[in-house]
Every structure is written in C-alpha cells, then in structure tokens.
C-alpha cells in the first residue's frame, strides 16, 4: 500500500493523527494519547483495479462480477481500506468510572483499489 505524499495521484493511505491534548480531550481519555484517523485517497485507474490486493468491500464484489461478466460500465474502481485494526481506549465516562474497550476497525493500516 502506498503512503500519500504531498501530491496525491494514485490510491494511497494518508496518515492523519489527532493528539487528544490538542483538542482538550486528554482529561477524560486516559489512553492512548491520540488517534490515527488515517484515510484512503487518490485515483484508481482501470489498470489498477483490484490491486494491490482485493479490497474487502461490497463494491469490490459487485465490480468484479461486472468485470467477470464482461459488462463494461462507467463505474470506476475506488480507493478503499484493505486492512484495519482496533483502537484500544481507556477513558472516564460521565459517571467517573474508568472504561476500557477495544473499538473494532478504527485504524486504517493500508489502502487498495477495488
């Protein structure tokens, strides 16, 4: 998976990190210190469709069916997450209890073309 630079052209992962201290959320979120809200962006020209690995998405399934059946459409391939991981959080809730939970599929690790 490509990592986006300043000039974005082909499908890549853009790193985006938010420090909870910067948004005054560090008083109620005990851990982690921030959130990697990475996201996918960039173009997926026809010859990159399905690379660098099959993107696990509904769109990918529909798109590959269209291709298998030789149906030419105007639909183009999209740049979507191909790998994600959970975000483990420890925080105070409104009753001042400490809560620890793993929120699934919160951090995008890599991107690919459907």
């Amino acid at each position, binding site marked *: 998976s490509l990592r986006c630079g300043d000039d*974005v052209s082909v499908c890549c992962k853009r790193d*985006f990190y*938010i420090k909870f201290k910067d*948004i005054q*959320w560090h*008083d*109620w979120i*005990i851990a982690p210190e921030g*959130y990697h*809200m990475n996201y996918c*962006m960039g173009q997926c020209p026809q010859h990159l469709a399905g690379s660098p690995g099959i993107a696990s998405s509904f769109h990918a399934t529909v798109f590959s069916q269209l291709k298998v059946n030789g149906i030419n459409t105007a639909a183009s391939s999209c740049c979507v997450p191909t790998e994600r991981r959970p975000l483990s*959080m*420890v*925080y*105070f*809730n*409104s*009753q*001042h*209890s*400490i*809560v*620890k*939970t*793993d*929120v*699934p599929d*919160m951090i995008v690790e890599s991107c690919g073309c459907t």
Partner: protein
Amino acid sequence: GSPGCASCGLPAMERDKEESLMIEFAKQQLLDKLHLKERPNITQTVPRAALLIALRKLHSGRVGQDGTLEVANSRPIPTNDQGYEIVSFADLSETEIGDTASLSLTFQFLQEHGQSIQVLQSSLWIYARSSEDRHRDSRLSARVFLSAEGGLSGSNRTLVMEKMLEVQESGWHTFPITRTLQAFLDGGQRRLQLEVSCDEDGKNLCSLDGSDTPNQPFLVAQVRLRDDHSKHTLRKR
C-alpha cells in the same frame, strides 16, 4: 489542501479548514463508537494513586486469595460484540469516614434506553487494614450487604456474600458480585449501594481512613452491551 472531489463535487479546501473538518469528523466518530452523546465532563478527580492501583488491578491477572481469577483474565469477549471493562469508584461524598464507621459505598450506573448490559464478571475490591491485636486469630469474617436504594446505613439490607479474610497484613481483597450487579442492572436501577463490614471488636478494618486515601474501594466489571433490538432478530445458523 486536497484537490476537489471529482465524484461528490466538494470544492477544494484550504489545508487548515480541511484539518478542522477532519478533527470534528474524528470527534464525532469516536463518540459514536463509544456510544456517547457528548464528551464526559470530568468534575471530580480520582486521586492518581488510586487510579493507578485500580488500573493495575484491572490488568494484573492476579489470582485472588479465594482462588478466583480476577476479571482481567476471565473469558475473552467474542470480537464481534463490543466488550467493556469498567472500574467504578464509590461516590465518597456519601461514605462515612472513621475506623468504627460502616463502609457504605454508592456506585452510579447509567444505562442507555434500548440497551441492556450483560455482566460477564464483576468483583468488589476492598482494602482491609491489619489487625492491631497481634495475639488474636488473624482471620476475620467480612460481609457485604446490598442496601435498598435510598435506604439508611444498616436498614433494609440483604447479605450478598460473606468470606474469611486473612488480616495478618493490610492488603486488598476481592468479593465476587457478578450476580448482584447483573440483577441490579436488570432492575434498571441507577445507584448500587453496598455495605461492607469487617468487624473486629467494634472496629471496621475495612473502613476508610480518609477520603483521599489511595486505597479507595472500587468495583471492577467486565460487561458486554446487549442491543435489546437484536433480541428480536432471527439469525441464520
């Protein structure tokens, strides 16, 4: 900033405007995932030492003196259900202080409508001081009572559990209260009131010796959110 969005027609944005939009989006996404309407306002601080002890107990995986394994290492929660581990400190404003006082603890719980909580395991952590009389038996009977909501200390209470503590040395003790907490939450109540008595000749070895003690009692629970609507859906097997 990024080029405009060809497919959705959003115009190109300056970088800092785009960044503030992304931050607002991230805030909303985190609150949604944590089932919170807004960010909690922290009005009462927990002493840092007490916080660290509680977090350490949450993750210690230590075997309790009664042989039960603490919450941290209980059955893993299936990944498709969002699970929570909760450490709740008692509301000290209602707890009497002093070595003869009974230790009455009040825990607040808030349940969202339409959701119910399944308690996988829960235990109460109490710090007992050592017995001052070195010559007497070092074992002491400790009892945990459930007080009726709003009841006065000592009135209208039911015994939840009783066990013998080793009080040769001061230390932490756990009291499994899984069923008690499940029944409490199923009843839709909000304030769980427990009383702990570790009576030795009129002295309560489990009472607090100060409101800012690092050895504050706390409740640990491993829970899973049950979405009541899901109860009515048929699943393909």
